[in-house]
């Protein structure tokens, strides 16, 4: 699966796509592949504050639990409730399956994350 150029990536295998001051956050194709069939997601409430580097939710496959880490700080402005009911969407289309939308406090922090080429070289 192709990794889009319209976003940044993290070493925790998440992607973040900024538009204006709001960013969508999801997990990468590599992450969903490693997890296997996703069956459950725990996502924060609208209004919660994310702290960069801290866990903000979890994603579970049949076999494993994986925490979601905030790539940058910000306030959750929208949660993708459809994913809670259909978590398998994350496997089918990870790069379209945003989990939360966050109002980012520091756009520079997003710019400092990995670009597509850097992320793919991380995957080796």
């Amino acid at each position: 699966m192709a990794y889009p150029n319209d976003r940044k990536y993290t070493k925790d295998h998440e992607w973040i796509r900024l538009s204006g001051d709001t960013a969508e956050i999801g997990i990468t194709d590599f992450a969903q592949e490693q997890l296997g069939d996703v069956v459950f997601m725990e996502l924060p409430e609208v209004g919660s504050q994310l702290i960069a580097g801290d866990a903000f939710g979890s994603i579970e496959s049949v076999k494993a639990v994986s925490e979601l880490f905030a790539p940058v700080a910000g306030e959750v402005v929208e949660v993708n409730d459809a994913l809670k009911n259909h978590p398998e969407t994350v496997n089918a289309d990870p790069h379209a399956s945003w989990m939360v939308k966050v109002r980012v406090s520091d756009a520079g922090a997003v710019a400092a994350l990995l670009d597509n080429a850097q992320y793919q070289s991380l995957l080796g």
Partner: protein
Amino acid sequence: MTDAADTEIRKTALNARHRALQARMVPFAGWEMPLEYAGITSEHLAVRTRAGLFDVSHMGEIEIAGKDALLAVQRIACSDPALLQVGQAQYSGLLTPEGTFIDDLIIYRMAPSHFLLVVNAGNAAKDFEWISEQVKAVGNAAAIDSSSRYALIAIQGPASLDVLQPLTGADLAEIQPFWFSYGEVANARATIARTGYTGEDGYEIFVPPNMADKVWQAILDSGESAGVVPAGLGARDTLRLEAGMRLHGSDIDETTTPLEAGLGWIIGWTNETFIGRERLLEQKAQGLARNLVGFEMIDRGIARHGHRVMQDGEPVGVVTSGTQTPHLGKAVGMAYVPTAQSSLGSTIEIDIRGRAANARVVKMPFYKKGSQA
């Protein structure tokens, strides 16, 4: 576990097949095994609705033979092997003198004085050492580790009989559940048992390792039109959990007895010589402090192995297995809870990574063959 670094990982005779099928291979109990091929969910559903093919060659085989073989097996197994006819199999436990599980196993009576024990891969070396020691005390019987003589292939699911029958002269319908027969499968000499670990009808086929590849491929080819798929350890675990089957190392171990684990039915009280019997009799007389129960989540969340069962802020029990089951589509699990909380319908509180979530005690198995999801 500690010796993992200096022990080479073992491979079954089907390793190349798994790789060719692009399975995700993982280390398991010292073996490199397929965790999943197309995905745990689809493999699980295939077994419930059609059939799945499993390589379980990592399982250990121990044979006990000799004039006093029955006495030897009666000493080490908590069921009563004397009740077995030749050609019949029995689920049983290998217990410590304290009545706790060294392992669980299936005993096959091959001949009046010849038994085959199939044990868990991770326990096979420990089991063999223990069994050899105990058998010595009995008299004219010997234990042999024959794991390397067998590859074990399981076909599980409602289509199993129809898929396997064209490959063998044995009349598969004649083999009743927990019985076995001999025959050829795809021209390989085989022991064919109607046993399994999925809660579904099916067969476990013991073949010489050098024939495993041929048998595996013949079954996949025969099952292609019926939608038979290879299935990995991941699906094996979710299937057995849905079927309420205990996993040694998770639900039962050297700290738990068959009575506590809700496996009182496997105890052969007519067997008066098995190790651990006195302790089980005592426990039965005294009553149980805790019980293994099945639960399904009321609140959102999946309780997993190791999560605590809480009461008034104190841990009172522990989850031993838990997952979101693919076929039933709900989060279920097993947990040890105080006897007072173990009756059907009780609400228990589980600490899921710091969040309190309620679950309801329900009857196991969660899934019964032939029932609808």
